[in-house]
């Protein structure tokens, strides 16, 4: 009996032991699917639709990556993670990439041993309150009960904000956005705080979105982006440049509609040619097929298309581009050159 247990334990640890060593690209290719960590459901960013197909802005990044690496945007296994489970899931190898409204911070990059490959949404932390509460500034929230997702940067910002303003609050820790929504609507907390984009997305799903307002204060910088494990530089390069390809495509006017046509024959813009593989060998340098960026863009469109379809002003979430406009239009979205 003792020995059976021992061998069982050995087998289990043997399986776990295999994780950290092998190259993620080889693993993904051998598996034939990409394991992508997403949220447990945040409208516009990552949420399954009526048919159970994951849709959203963060989901779009994973689909583009799967298209670039495997040639099939649907070859993605989505793993819902909470604020608390996401990092363990990535560090242990359960997922290959985490695209879950995750803020790029020093300690996560350096101490937690992850690599952020870029920023796909520049955000900041906001507060949502019911209009009936009659509050117009976050500084009037002394003594309020605040719903907060545990294990997030927003939890730390919240503590800092109330401490520096010398006011008190009662935190109600919750695990997922859905739970927060339920508690907030039931009135178990006065305020819900998270990234402003998340608040807008959550409010869009309410029965009466007009009854709730976002307070004017944005109390932090929240650059949200996909991240991978530290130490596998090839994989980090692939994810970084897939995201850059989507951003560059918007700047160069390459859309999901015209990408096939532009790739068919070399154009007069050499950067488009290099991006789409009709000139140079950028794909081979990444260890991917020459048409990797073509596939990535065709999967869900370029950065601007993903934004408009999922969270843009034409959607119920209705976020303006703002900081997330491309750099030529006064925003921060900028890709290094494809050269």
């Amino acid at each position, binding site marked *: 009996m003792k*020995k059976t247990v021992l061998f069982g334990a*050995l087998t289990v640890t043997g399986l776990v032991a295999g994780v950290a060593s092998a190259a993620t690209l080889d693993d993904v290719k051998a598996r034939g699917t990409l394991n992508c960590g997403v949220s447990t459901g945040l409208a516009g960013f990552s949420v399954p639709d009526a048919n159970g197909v994951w849709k959203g802005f963060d989901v779009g990044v994973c689909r583009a990556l799967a298209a670039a690496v495997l040639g099939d945007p649907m070859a993605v296994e989505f793993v819902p993670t909470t604020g608390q489970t996401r990092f363990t899931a990535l560090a242990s190898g359960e997922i290959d990439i985490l695209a879950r409204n995750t803020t790029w911070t020093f300690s996560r990059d350096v101490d937690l041993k992850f690599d952020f490959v870029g920023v796909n949404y520049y955000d900041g932390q906001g507060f949502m309150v019911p209009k009936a509460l009659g509050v117009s500034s976050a500084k009037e929230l002394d003594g309020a009960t605040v719903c907060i997702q545990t294990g997030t940067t927003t939890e730390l910002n919240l503590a800092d904000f109330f401490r520096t303003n010398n006011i008190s609050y009662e935190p109600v820790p919750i695990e997922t956005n859905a739970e927060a929504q339920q508690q907030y609507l039931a009135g178990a907390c006065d305020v819900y705080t998270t990234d402003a984009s998340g608040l807008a997305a959550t409010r869009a799903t309410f029965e009466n979105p007009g009854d709730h307002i976002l307070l004017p204060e944005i109390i932090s910088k929240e650059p949200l982006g996909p991240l991978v494990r530290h130490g596998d530089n090839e994989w980090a390069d692939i994810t970084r440049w897939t995201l850059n390809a989507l951003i560059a495509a918007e700047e160069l006017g390459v859309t999901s509609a015209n990408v096939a046509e532009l790739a068919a024959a070399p154009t007069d813009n050499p950067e488009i040619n290099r991006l789409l593989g009709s000139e140079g060998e950028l794909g081979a340098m990444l260890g991917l097929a020459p048409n990797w960026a073509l596939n990535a863009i065709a999967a869900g469109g370029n950065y601007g298309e993903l934004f408009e379809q999922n969270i843009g002003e034409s959607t119920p979430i209705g976020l303006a581009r703002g900081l997330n406009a491309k750099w030529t239009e006064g925003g921060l979205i900028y890709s290094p050159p494809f050269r």
Partner: protein
Amino acid sequence: MSTLTDPPTESFRLSQLIYDTRYRSITIQVVAFILILAGMAWLVNNTISNLQALGKDFNFGFLKNAAGYDINQMLIEYNNQMSHGRAAMVGILNTLLVAFLGCLTATVLGVFAGVLRLSKNWVVNKLMAVYVEAFRNVPLLLWIILIFAIMTESMPRPNDFRGEDATSSMILGDSVAVTNRGIWIPRVGFTNSISGQEAVAPTEGAVPLASGLFDWVVIFGVLGLSILAIRFIRRRADRIQEATGVRPVTWYQQIVLLFVPVGIALFALGATIVQPYLRGFNFTEGIHLRNSLIALWFALSLYTGAFIAENVRAGILAISKGQSEAAFALGLQPNRTMSLIILPQAMRVIIPPLISQYLNLTKNSSLAIAVGYMDVRATLGGITINQTGRELEGMLLLGGFYLVLSLLISGAMNLYNRSTQLQER
């Protein structure tokens, strides 16, 4: 001089290790021991190499760093500038609190339900059967979530208590507020507090009333001394009764001893009842029992109470019927029969399974995750791990804590068990 010669001994052969029954058992033990050691060494080695592959080291220095997050229920002073170690301590105390409250309530519930299930009254008997079967056979997590959902969804909001046309009002003489954020009950404050320095928000025009640890140490210390004195009086009465056959009347001495010293202590400290009242967004003052605590506490008590009820019933049924018949024959009343004859014997059967129920309840308290109760799993094993990335260290500490706590509980209960066991001479 004669020399003794040993009989020619058969030289030891290696095959004896397997075929000779004298050696075989030792061989098997040595082999198993080596295998287990090798397995453990391999596990440790594997952990170290995996940590290296991830570029992580193994140290507990993070416990000294500032935690940065706030905790809503604190039994000791804490703010977000204190260390992760302090936050873990707050969590540990919250775990101990819910475990203690849960064990207490579960025992009371369990003993009542167990005894009543043996009642001859059909209605009482069946009601208890329904309670036991319903709670024992539905997962604990569902009960926790159910109680939590009822509290959050169907109780009035603090705002409903406000203004002229308030739709809700406080109960029990305006002293208890039941809201969807928890229940506020009155607390005791001391005008001459020895140690308390809590920042207490006063009602309009009232003096802030503190209550500190030392105030309670004084009061419970006095109470403890009174109880010791009462026991001394009872023993003396027993001795006199055994010697003379007449028991001296002591009830008034006992009552005086129980109430007067504590009353004097309370008066000296200036004890006052502080009622909760509505201010700003929430009720303030009094004691705030959060929904998470209520849901966890009640669900754990009701669930474990159902198991304890069955233990109690089993213990009582284990006592032969002759015992109670003999007691009745001696003219003992039924309740005296229960407390003097049946229960002391039944305890021997009840206590061992009761220990494991206490352990279950304590470990089940980590289901706090479902309702956001800030126990040690949520602070050390949740937010701290998440903010510092120290999964291995955090989980080892967490496992170590539950192990030590369980061993302490079972150690204490084993001592109690020994005191109730049959004394053989």
